[in-house]
C-alpha cells in the first residue's frame, strides 16, 4: 500500500478549518444515528470519512449539507455558527453534496442538467448559448471531453459523476461532499476522478470523501475520520495512519454478535446452487458461474462490497431475478422453474435487503404483514380462518420478539429493528427449510442486530439452513459457520469462522489498490 499519489503529507499552507461540526447529534425517534460528533473540514484538502454501514456517515454528510437538520449541536462555517434550513441554503454558502445515487435527469442534456433549477435568463427566455458556453468551459476545466448537448443517459457512469461535479462547481462550491463516488466506477474512471479531486484541492476546494474502498481512499485523503455507531472513534492525518488502523477503529473490539451455534449435528445439503449466472439488464453477468452449498443447520455468510453480486445471487435463488445458467437445488430437487410462491411453499424464502421497498406492505397492519406469506396455511375452502390467523400472528410476534401494541398496530409505528423482525417473522411463519437474508442488519441498531442473529442461530439449531449476506465484516465473524467472500460476481475466498477481518476484507477487494 505504498502511496502512489502526489498528495503531500504536509501541505505547504496547512489548510485551516473551513467547516466544522460540534457535538452534532441526530435522532430518528429512538434511533440515534449520530451521538455528538465533532468533525473538521480543512481548506483545500481531502477529509475521508470511514465507517461501516449504519455508522452514521451519510447522516453526518446530510447534516453538513443542510439536507437534514441536527437534533442538537452546531455547525461552524469560517468560525461562525450557521444554521442551514435546507440544501439550497447550504449551497448558497458553497457547500454541495454528490449523493451516492446520482441526482441527474437522464433524459436531459449535460447543459440542462448543470443549470437545472437555476436557468440563465436572456432577453428571449433561457439563454441556452450562454449556458452551453459555461458548460463547455467547465468541461475543459475538468479535462473531460463531453459535449454539453449529450443526453446524460448516453454517458458512462463515470462521466455522469463528472457532470455532477461540474454542477457543484458551477455554483462555486468551496466544499464538496462525495458519498461513495467510486462505488460504480471502473479503475480508469477512478483515476480520472482522483485527478479531478487533486485539481480541485489545488484550487482551494475542500473535499469530504466517503468510501468503502479503504485503500483507494487512503491514496487520495489528507485526513481520516472514523465513525462507529454514531460516534467519532478516531481522527488522524494521513501520515499517521495505515489500513490496519482504519479497520481496527471501524470495527471496534467490543463487537459481540454471538458466535456460531454448535453442539448439534448438521444435516445434509439443503440448498445447492450450481454454476449460477445472473445477468443485469444489459446482459453483463453480475453473478458468474457461482456454486455454493448450504447444509441443514448451517449458517453461511456471503460477504462482499456493494456491486459484488450478493443481492443478485440471493434474488435469483428466490426466483425474483431470471438466471441465464445454472441450477438451484432445494433438498435434492431442482426448483428453477418454480415461481417465488412455489419456492416458498417448498421451503426456500428470501428476506429482502430493502424492507421498505421489498419487505413490508405499509398499508397493512403488523399482523397482516406477518401472515402475508402464509395465508394458505390458515385458509380453509374459500375463507381465511380468523382464529388460526390470530394465533399465527401472536406466535410470530412472540417468537421473533416484535415490540408492538399488537397485531393491529400500523407497521409504520415500529422502529426499524422491529420492522425487520416482522419481515423475518413473516418468512419464518412459512416454516422454511432454507432462509436467505440479504443484509439483514441494514439500518437497525446494534441491539436489534444481536436479536436478529440470535433468531438465526436458534433456527439453525433446529435444522434451518441460513444463508445471509452482509457488507460488514464484523457480522461475518459472528454466527456464521462458513464465510464466502464474493468479488465481482464470483467467489474469491471461503473462510471458516476463525478467519480474521483483514483476511476477509482483502479477499473482497476492499483492500485492493485501485
Amino acid at each position, binding site marked *: 500500500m505504498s502511496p502512489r499519489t502526489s498528495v503531500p503529507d504536509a501541505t505547504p499552507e496547512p489548510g485551516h478549518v473551513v467547516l466544522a461540526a460540534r457535538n452534532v447529534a441526530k435522532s*430518528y*425517534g*429512538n434511533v440515534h444515528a449520530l451521538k455528538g460528533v465533532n468533525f473538521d473540514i480543512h481548506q483545500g484538502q481531502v477529509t475521508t470519512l470511514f465507517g461501516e454501514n449504519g455508522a452514521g456517515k451519510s447522516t453526518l454528510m446530510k447534516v453538513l449539507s443542510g439536507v437534514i437538520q441536527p437534533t442538537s449541536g452546531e455547525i461552524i462555517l469560517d468560525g461562525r455558527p450557521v444554521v442551514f434550513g435546507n440544501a439550497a441554503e447550504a449551497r448558497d454558502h458553497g457547500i454541495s453534496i454528490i449523493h451516492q445515487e446520482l441526482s441527474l435527469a437522464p433524459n436531459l442534456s449535460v447543459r440542462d442538467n448543470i443549470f437545472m433549477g437555476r436557468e440563465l435568463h436572456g432577453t428571449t427566455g433561457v439563454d441556452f448559448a450562454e449556458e452551453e458556453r459555461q458548460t463547455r468551459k467547465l468541461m475543459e476545466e475538468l479535462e473531460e471531453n463531453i459535449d454539453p448537448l449529450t443526453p446524460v443517459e448516453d454517458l458512462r457512469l463515470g462521466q455522469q459523476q463528472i457532470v455532477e461535479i461540474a454542477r457543484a462547481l458551477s455554483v462555486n462550491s468551496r466544499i464538496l461532499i462525495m458519498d461513495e463516488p467510486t462505488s460504480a466506477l471502473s479503475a480508469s474512471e477512478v483515476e480520472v476522478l482522483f485527478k479531478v479531486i487533486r485539481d480541485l484541492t489545488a484550487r482551494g476546494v475542500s473535499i469530504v470523501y466517503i468510501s468503502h474502498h479503504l485503500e483507494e481512499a487512503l491514496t487520495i485523503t489528507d485526513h481520516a475520520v472514523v465513525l462507529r455507531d454514531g460516534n467519532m472513534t478516531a481522527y488522524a492525518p494521513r501520515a499517521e495512519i495505515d489500513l490496519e488502523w482504519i479497520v481496527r477503529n471501524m470495527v471496534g473490539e467490543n463487537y459481540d454478535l454471538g458466535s456460531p451455534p454448535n453442539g448439534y449435528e448438521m444435516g445434509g445439503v439443503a440448498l445447492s446452487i450450481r454454476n449460477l449466472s445472473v445477468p443485469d439488464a444489459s446482459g453483463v453477468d453480475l453473478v458468474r458461474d457461482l456454486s455454493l452449498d448450504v447444509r441443514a443447520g448451517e449458517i453461511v455468510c456471503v460477504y462482499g462490497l456493494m456491486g459484488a453480486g450478493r443481492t443478485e445471487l440471493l434474488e435469483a435463488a*428466490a426466483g*425474483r431475478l431470471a438466471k441465464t445458467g445454472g441450477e438451484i437445488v432445494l433438498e435434492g430437487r431442482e426448483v428453477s422453474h418454480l*415461481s*417465488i*410462491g*412455489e*419456492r*416458498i*411453499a417448498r421451503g426456500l*424464502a*428470501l428476506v*429482502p435487503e430493502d424492507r421498505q*421497498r*421489498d*419487505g*413490508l*406492505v*405499509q*398499508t*397493512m397492519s403488523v399482523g*397482516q404483514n406477518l*401472515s*402475508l*406469506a402464509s*395465508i*394458505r396455511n390458515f*385458509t380453509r375452502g*374459500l*375463507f*381465511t380462518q380468523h382464529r388460526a390467523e390470530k394465533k399465527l400472528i401472536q406466535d410470530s410476534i412472540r417468537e421473533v420478539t416484535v*415490540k*408492538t*401494541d399488537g397485531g393491529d*398496530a*400500523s407497521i*409504520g*409505528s*415500529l*422502529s426499524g429493528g*422491529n420492522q425487520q423482525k416482522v419481515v423475518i417473522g*413473516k418468512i419464518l411463519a*412459512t416454516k422454511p427449510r432454507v432462509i436467505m437474508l440479504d443484509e439483514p442488519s441494514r439500518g437497525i441498531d446494534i*441491539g436489534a442486530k444481536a436479536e436478529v442473529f440470535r433468531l438465526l442461530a436458534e433456527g439453525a439449531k433446529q435444522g434451518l439452513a441460513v444463508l445471509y449476506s452482509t457488507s460488514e465484516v464484523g457480522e461475518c465473524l459472528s454466527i456464521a459457520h462458513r464465510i464466502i467472500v464474493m468479488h465481482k460476481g464470483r467467489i474469491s475466498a471461503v473462510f471458516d469462522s476463525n478467519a480474521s477481518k483483514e483476511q476477509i476484507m482483502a479477499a473482497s477487494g476492499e483492500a485492493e489498490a485501485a
Partner: protein
Amino acid sequence: MSDTTNTQTAKRSTGGFDIARLLLEGRAFFALIVIIAVFSYMSPNYFTTSNFLIMSSHVAIYGLLAIGMLLVILNGGIDLSVGSILALAGVSAGAMMQGIELQALGVILYPPVWAVVVLTCVLGAFVGAVNGVLISIFKVPAFVATLGVMYVARGVALLMTNGLTYNNLAGKAEFGNTGFNWLGFSRIAGIPISVLVLAAAAIIAGLMLSRSAFGRWLYASGGNERAAELSGVPTRRVKIAVYTLSGILSAIAGLVLASQLTSAGPTAGQTYELTAIAAVVIGGAALTGGRGTVRGTMLGAFVIGFLSDGLVIIGVSSYWQTVFTGAVIVLAVLMNSLQYGRGGRKV
C-alpha cells in the same frame, strides 16, 4: 425499546382527535345523511319509500361499476373501460335477444334469457381479461390500456348496431326467450331486482376482500407489489383477476341498464367510468392502492346517486348537478389526502 413511546403517541392521538377522526373516517356516511336530510326538507316527495327504491335502482348501475372499480383501484390501477364494456354488454345482449342469424344454416337462434346473461358476462370477463393481460404481462400502464379498450369496446358496440339502438328486448313467448325485463322491473318483497343484484355483488365482494386469501393478496399487491411478490403472492394472476372481475361487473351493470330501459344503445354508459371512480374515491379508497372498502364504496355510490336524483327532484338544472358532483369529488379527495397524507409520513 420503542413500544412504550408508541403506545403513548397512539393513545394521545386517539384521545385528542376523536371527533375529527370519526367525521373524517365516516365522511361518506355523514355526507349521505346530510344529503337525505336537506332534500327531505326541500321536497316532500324525497323522503318516501318509493322514491328511495327508485333512486336505489339508479344507484345499482353505478354501484356495480364502482365495486369493480374498487377492486382495480385497490390493486393500484384504474379501469376507464367500464362504461364502454357496459354498453357493449347491453348491445350484445340486445343482439342475442333479437336472434342470432346463422346464415350458413339458414336459421335464427333465440337463446334463452339465462344463456344471454351468461354469455354477456363471459364477454365482459373477456374484455376485462384483455385489460388485465395488457397491464400485467405486457406492462402497458393501466390508464393507457383501459383507455384503448374503452375506445375499442365502444367502437365495436357502435359497429354492431350501426349506431342504432335495440328496442323491445322483451322477447317473444313462441321463441321461449321472454323475461329479460325481469332484471329491471321485477321486485322481490318490494325491492327492485337491480338493488338486490347490487347487494349480492357488494356482499360477495366484501367477503372476498375481508375473508379470502385473494382479498388479502389484493390489498398486499396494491399496497406494495414488490413485497407481495416476494411473499409468494401471485401478483400477475391477481391483477388479471381484478380486471376480469371489473369486466364481469360492468357486463352485469349493462344487463341491468338494458333491462331497466328495455332497450340497448351503443352510447349507453358514457362517462360512467368517471362516476364509478368518483364513488370509490368518495368512499375513502386511496388511488395509490391498498386502501379502501366495499362499504365505503357503496356509501360513495349512494352519495352520488342520491345527490343527483335529489337535485332533479327539487328541479335544479342538470348543469348544476354536474357542478355539485364535481365539488363533492374534489372535497372527497381533499379529505383522502388529509387522512392518508398524515398517516403515510409517520417514521
